[in-house]
């Protein structure tokens, strides 16, 4: 079976700095691949190459059998859902207009867009009657993030990209949204690539974890294997799990 997304010897150089070095990995349909790493490990760079926000300086990223450079850039982006930290919602659009954005760009008829938006808001736990007409500034951080997820799902893309989506949320909201993520995945069976620096989050949401360090792939394995794996960078991340808190 061919992978939905494949990185083939992908390197990325921005100026003099080599951000990503010869990354090769595949993402199968239904997988949630977590790109785990410290700040500057190249994980976000790798993610942005999938929907063509960045181009590889060597190698190629293949999406649904076609290299990203050969895709029509607009078509590629509209086939891939994208969720970022703080959601990146349009402040001048209502929740409804934010969620219906890609269907509108794709020219869906208005009644179909409205039905779709209502359904999605229900799915992410925001009753449309209460939330559809609000503006992003009238929402909490967690609610904004839910709208961001609904917007990414709107045109029913086969693949979703998450760039530290829950990074700016308080720990409780974060766990809620992780739970919702798992539930949506079970229900919709989407493929996802998920960037985080939080090893807990990685272990919760991943079906496979790719650990990046200094632009190189250190390890690609399941969460269970990750817990047993050896190596300096792996130990550094696993140590985050063991930290005991001693009240003074």
């Amino acid at each position, binding site marked *: 079976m061919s992978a939905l997304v494949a990185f083939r010897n992908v390197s990325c150089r921005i100026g003099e700095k080599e951000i990503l070095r010869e990354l090769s990995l595949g993402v199968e349909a239904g997988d949630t691949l977590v790109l785990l790493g410290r700040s500057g490990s190249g994980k976000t760079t790798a993610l942005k190459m999938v929907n063509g*926000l960045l181009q590889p300086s060597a190698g190629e990223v293949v999406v649904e059998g076609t290299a990203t450079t050969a895709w029509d850039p607009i078509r590629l982006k509209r086939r891939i859902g994208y969720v*970022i930290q703080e*959601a990146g919602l349009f*402040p*001048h659009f209502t929740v409804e207009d934010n969620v219906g954005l890609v269907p509108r760009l794709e020219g869906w008829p208005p009644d179909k867009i409205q039905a779709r938006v209502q359904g999605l808001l229900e799915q992410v736990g925001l009753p449309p009657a209460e939330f559809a007409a609000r503006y992003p500034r009238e929402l909490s951080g967690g609610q904004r993030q839910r709208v961001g997820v609904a917007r990414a799902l709107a045109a029913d893309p086969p693949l979703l990209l998450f760039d530290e989506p829950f990074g700016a949320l308080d720990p409780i909201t974060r766990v809620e949204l992780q739970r919702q993520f798992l539930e949506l995945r079970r229900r919709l069976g989407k493929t996802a690539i998920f960037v985080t620096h939080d090893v807990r989050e990685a272990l919760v949401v991943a079906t496979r974890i790719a650990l990046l360090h200094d632009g190189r792939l250190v390890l690609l394995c399941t969460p269970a294997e990750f817990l047993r794996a050896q190596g300096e960078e792996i130990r550094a991340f696993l140590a985050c799990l063991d930290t005991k808190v001693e009240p003074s």
Partner: protein
Amino acid sequence: MTFEITPDLAGEIMDLTVEHLVLVGVSMGIAIALALPAGILLTRRAPLRRWVIGFANVMQTVPSLALFGFLIPLPLIGGIGKHTAIVALVLYALLPVLRNTLTGILGVDPAVRESAIAMGMTGRQLLYQVELPLAARTILAGVRVATVTTIGTATIAAAIGGGGLGVFIFRGLASVDSTLILAGAVPAALIALLADGGLGWVEKKLSPG
């Protein structure tokens, strides 16, 4: 000292007020038509920015009376009359509109711009659906400043035969007649206040969200 507004004077005030409004309206129309697209273009061409903003800055620093004077000997755009006045007023109005267009568009949250691109918006959709609506208030604030300034500066246009309410002011200065000076200055001030209030109101209406 008495101020008497004869029917003759009242009629002339009306005529010159209309002339003044036309002068300001045409100048602002041209200035916006030039500065808005130029501002948008400059958000996409960083290296050009310094030069164009520099030019507009220099234009603003030239005293208005001197600028009107400089323009008189120039072929095509110069000479005596309305068109020279309009050229000068346009040069003055360019900077605030241009600068605010740049500031407004460049001030759009990078996360919002990135997500617009990642959602698959074309460059045109990004501009019309995201950048311009979010920059609208800032751009309009520039138009407001430029309009109010132009209403004042336009009184000097009378010095080179541009007409408008400045005609009263220069005539009053020459004949040491306060009534005439006020006949020009008061309507000009009122127009400026009305324009400021009106554009301020529109600006509030444009508040995003």
